[in-house]
Structures are given as structure tokens and as C-alpha cells.
């Protein structure tokens, strides 16, 4: 693990001149990146995709996981298998499936046209941020659901009885009991989804076309086309660092929440 990372650090401090690597240690690559609006924008875009996909999966997963934990008894195995099923198929197949559904001449547009809901195919469905988000949400949803489900499965149903018994209406019960106790699962799920989605290369390109271009494309280009490994390494580190900063900020905010702070429990 640390080996490649260390090599990358060293590389990122070198430079390329006349198509060959010059082994002069400097921070020129990083200075160049920070001064370059295009690389900053591409990094921000990767983080933005990560954030949006994480938020959408979170919104879908909490009720689904809650329902699974509370209302599905003997058929639990079946439901878990159904949720895991997408993970058994290749990512490539899943993205192609979404392309046939969302394409300009795809199934969704076709159906809407035939039902006369629309008169022109919706262009926005294919090779657009919307397509990226829909397909990435689909691909990463199982991770979020499973993480939250495991947390909610451990939730003692007697606590919900006690909350209602003491006068809590469903919304209060959800906000004050279910959500705080699901927090460990939510945090795990957010990390499971946010980190890989931000670093996603394949999916964003397959589904987004040019709109799916993020910093990961730039990294890929530096390594495979431009053969500027030092710059590629520096770009990788910029992405890694920015993910690290976002995750750290997220964890700090979460741990400051009153409900979580109590859960983590400071002794007085």
C-alpha cells in the first residue's frame, strides 16, 4: 500500500523536460496545479459528483434500510440478495444498461414519446450530469443501504417503543432516536460512497461524455498520453488531499452534532 504511494510522492516532486524525467526535487508541479483554474475546476467537479451522488444515495438508503430492519422478517435474506445483485454484474454491463435506457433514442425517451408525454426526446438524459448521477447512484446504492441497514439492525426495537410510549410522534422518534443511532452506519456509508465516486473514472466518462470529464481524466491523460508522470502523480495527490480534507471536514461537523457527541459519550 505505502510503496506505490511513496513512489508517487517522489515522482510528483520531479519534472519532465524534453520527454524525459528530470530528478530535481521541487514543488513546481504543485505550484503549477494550484495556479491552474482548469485543474482546480476539474477537482471541484469530481468532489461535486461525489457529494451529489452521496447525498442522493443517503436520501434513498435511510428509508430503505429502515424498512428492511423493521418490517422484513423471514424474507430478509432474499431482500439482501436482491440489493446485492447489482454487485454481481460487471460495472461495464450496468453502465451500458443505463445508456440504453437513458440514451437519446433509448428506452425512456422512446416510452415517453410513445405515451405523448414529450414531443422531442430529452437530450439531457444521455451524456449529461443527470445520467452520471443516476447511474452512479444505482451502482453505489447497495453500499450505502447495507452500511445503514447493519446499524439499524442493531437498534433495539424497545427503544422505539419507549420513545412512542413517552409521547414521541414518528418524526421526532426518527430524528431523536433512529437517526442518531444509525449515525455510525451513515458515516460508514458516506465514506464508502463519497471516496470511490469522487475518484470514479470509468462511470463518469461512460455516462457523462464530455460533461463527465473530471480530474481523473486529467490524471489518466498524464500517465497514458502525455507521459508526464510527475504531473500525473501531483494531480493524484491533489485529488487524494482534497478528498481527505472534505472527509475530515465532514467528520468534524458530524462529531460536533449534539446527538452524535452524546453517543460518543464524554464522561463527566
Amino acid at each position, binding site marked *: 500500500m505505502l510503496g506505490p504511494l511513496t513512489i508517487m510522492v517522489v515522482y510528483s516532486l520531479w519534472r519532465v523536460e524534453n520527454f524525459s524525467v528530470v530528478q530535481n526535487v521541487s514543488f513546481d508541479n504543485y505550484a503549477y496545479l494550484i495556479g491552474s483554474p482548469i485543474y482546480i475546476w476539474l477537482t471541484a467537479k469530481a468532489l461535486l459528483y461525489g457529494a451529489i451522488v452521496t447525498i442522493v444515495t443517503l436520501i434513498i438508503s435511510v428509508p430503505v434500510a429502515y424498512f428492511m430492519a423493521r418490517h422484513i422478517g423471514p424474507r430478509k435474506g432474499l431482500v439482501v440478495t436482491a440489493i446485492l445483485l447489482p454487485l454481481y454484474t460487471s460495472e461495464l454491463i450496468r453502465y451500458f444498461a443505463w445508456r440504453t435506457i437513458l440514451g437519446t433514442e433509448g428506452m425512456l425517451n422512446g416510452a415517453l414519446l410513445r405515451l405523448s408525454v414529450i414531443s422531442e426526446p430529452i437530450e439531457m438524459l444521455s451524456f449529461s450530469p443527470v445520467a452520471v448521477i443516476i447511474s452512479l447512484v444505482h451502482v453505489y446504492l447497495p453500499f450505502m443501504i447495507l452500511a445503514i441497514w447493519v446499524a439499524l439492525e442493531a437498534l433495539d426495537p424497545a427503544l422505539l417503543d419507549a420513545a412512542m*410510549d413517552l409521547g414521541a410522534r414518528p418524526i421526532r422518534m426518527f430524528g431523536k432516536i433512529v437517526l442518531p443511532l444509525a449515525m455510525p452506519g451513515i458515516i460508514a456509508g458516506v465514506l464508502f460512497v463519497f471516496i470511490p465516486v469522487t475518484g470514479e473514472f470509468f462511470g463518469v466518462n461512460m455516462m457523462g461524455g464530455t460533461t463527465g470529464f473530471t480530474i481523473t481524466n486529467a490524471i489518466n491523460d498524464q500517465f497514458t498520453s502525455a507521459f508526464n508522470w510527475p504531473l500525473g502523480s501531483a494531480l493524484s495527490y491533489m485529488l487524494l488531499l482534497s478528498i481527505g480534507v472534505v472527509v475530515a471536514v465532514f467528520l468534524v461537523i458530524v462529531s460536533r452534532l449534539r446527538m452524535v457527541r452524546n453517543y460518543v459519550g464524554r464522561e463527566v
Partner: protein
Amino acid sequence: MHASTRPRTFAGVDALEDKYAEPAPIEPILRLSRVGKDFGSTRVVHDVSFVVGRGEFVSLLGPSGSGKTTILRMIAGLEPASRGETYLKSERIDDKPPYERHVTTVFQDYALFPHMNVFENVAFGLRCQRLFSEAEITKRVHNALSLVRLNGYEQRTVRNLSGGERQRVAVARAVVTEPTLLLLDEPLGALDLKLRRETGKELRELHRRLGLAFLYVTHDQEEALSMSDRVILVHRGRIEQAGAPAELFWRPRTKFVAEFIGEANVLSGTLVGAEGSRVQLDLGGGVTCLAEDPEGVSTAAKTVDFAIRGERIMLGSEAASCTNHYLANIAEVRFYGSLVELTIVLANSLRLRARFTAGGPQAGLPPGATTEVGWDASSAVVLTE
């Protein structure tokens, strides 16, 4: 004593008879009328009717699986009833969700919120009511905590509390909202024996101070008898008998009640003669016995069961003055500390267990001794089923 004249502390305590025959002497806080519960095709609770009066301490006593906890959960609204009507004061509450019923529960394993400290746990119910300022909440939580002697525990996390402390937090959390009725679901079950006795006394004391009606679920007959004003004995989803603890103990109506509470001797015989409510029963082997038959169920054709408390059996010279007395052998002597249990065999080889205070004159007989054994007709109660 005859069935119609049998004193009853409460109207409506008995599912087998018309519950509306007599008015309740105390203002009823809770009234259940033919409440039943089915899980699928299994009938867990048959049509159960009873009343809890203002300030009363009532126990639902029964073995595990008897349906007592289900009854409690139906009253709290955590389990929908399949049939019947439930009234809190004069208000019908069957269709109300739990958060609209002014009833709170002390749960079996306390169900304290693990992500909240003691203060927040106790304040939870008050916050739900949205009636109080933060200062008022603080004041009420402090009062509730001092009621259970947990002052200064406000900021503790519940995970680090002992079993007894948790139980007291659960009680404080339930009473802080000043409910109309407090439900307790085996609140001492998770504690060890010594703590159970102490905490039981404290609960009883708390009940007296608050003047709040308590409905207490337990499988422990000693707990139920020692704490309650009235005991409702539940068996297989039905009320077997309800009444004051002493009434259930000395005047069991059914074989189940006789055996469940204090392990009475249950014998059987056929009717050979009757005078008023007093009957003469043939126990076989030439042994007859005079017994009390308040409901008049004994016949010559069918054997009936009757119960004798081991505490009511006399030995030696005291036995000679009893209505029923026989010559018998002591088969076994067991020493339990405060009491001694003797197994006695009659001439027709019927075995009886008799209990005596340790150190008393009757407790000193050795195994194998032959002695006079006897009991009064009023101590032998014919059971209805």
C-alpha cells in the same frame, strides 16, 4: 360462604362473571372490557376485562407466555388489540397511537436511550409534550431524579450505570410526565435477588408517595403478593382469578391458582354428603374429608379437586382438634431456613406437603415418625376446575 355472597374488592375483576354487576367502589382509572389479541390464528389473549382504580397497585401475575405482557402492551398502545374496549378514565383509547395515550411504561430491560445522558433520557417525555420551558424541564427532571435518589447523575452516560441505577432512571423517565397510569413490565427482572427486594420496597414507597395507579407485570408470585393491593392472575390468556393477595392465597378458585401461588396441596375426591357450603368428600382408601365448596361444584358422580395450604396443616395435639384428622407418617423433612417442609403420607398413601416455622414444636418431628395430622374444613377449598 356462597358464590353470590363472596366478597369482591372490585366489580369487573372477574372475566367469568358479569363484570357490570356491581359498581366499582373506587374511581376507575383504567377499564378493559373484553379485550383480546390474536397473533394470526393463535389466540394469545382471550376476552379479558378488569379495572384499575385511582391510586391502586395492581399486579398482572402469570407464568411466561401467559399473555400478561401482551395485555400491558395493548394498554400502552404498542400492540393493537384484536377485540374489546379500553378506557383511560372515561376516554376510550383503543384507536389512539401510543404517543397520544397518557400512560407510560417502565420496560423490562429499561430501554434507556444509549445516546443520551441521564438528564436527556428523563427529559425526553417532557420535550415531547412541548409544554415546558428549558428551565421548567430542568426543574422537573431534577425533581424526578431526586424522587428515585439519583441527584447528581444528570450528566452520566447510561451505559456506565449499574442495573439498579438504570432501573431508577427508567422509573424517573416514566413518572416525570405525570402519567395517568404507570405500567411496569417486570421492572425487577434484571436485578439480583437482594436488589430486587430492596427495589421492590422502593417502588411500593414511590407508589404511596405519588398516589399514581400502577399496573405491574410479573411472573414472581412473591413480588406480586407482597407489593400489590390486588393481584390479577393470568393463565393462557385468561384471567384465572383476581383479588386481594390474601384472597388468592387462601381462597384459590382453580387448581392453577392453588398450585401457582404458594404451591398448595391439590387433592381430589367425590361427594358423599353436603351441608350448606360444607361438603364431605371421599378421597379413596376409606379416607374422607370435610371441605368448603363456595361454588357448589362437587358431585357424587365426578371427582373434584380441592386445595389445602401446607401452612394450614397441623400436627400432633393441635391436629386432634381440627375438623379433619388422621394418623399419618412423616416421609421426608426438608429444611429451608426460615421454614421446614414435611412430606406426610396418609393411610391411603396420599402425600401432602406441610410447612412449619423452623424452630417451632411441630417442625421437630423426624422422618419415619407416626403422628396425628389434621386441618380445618375451612382450610380445604374446593376448586372450580
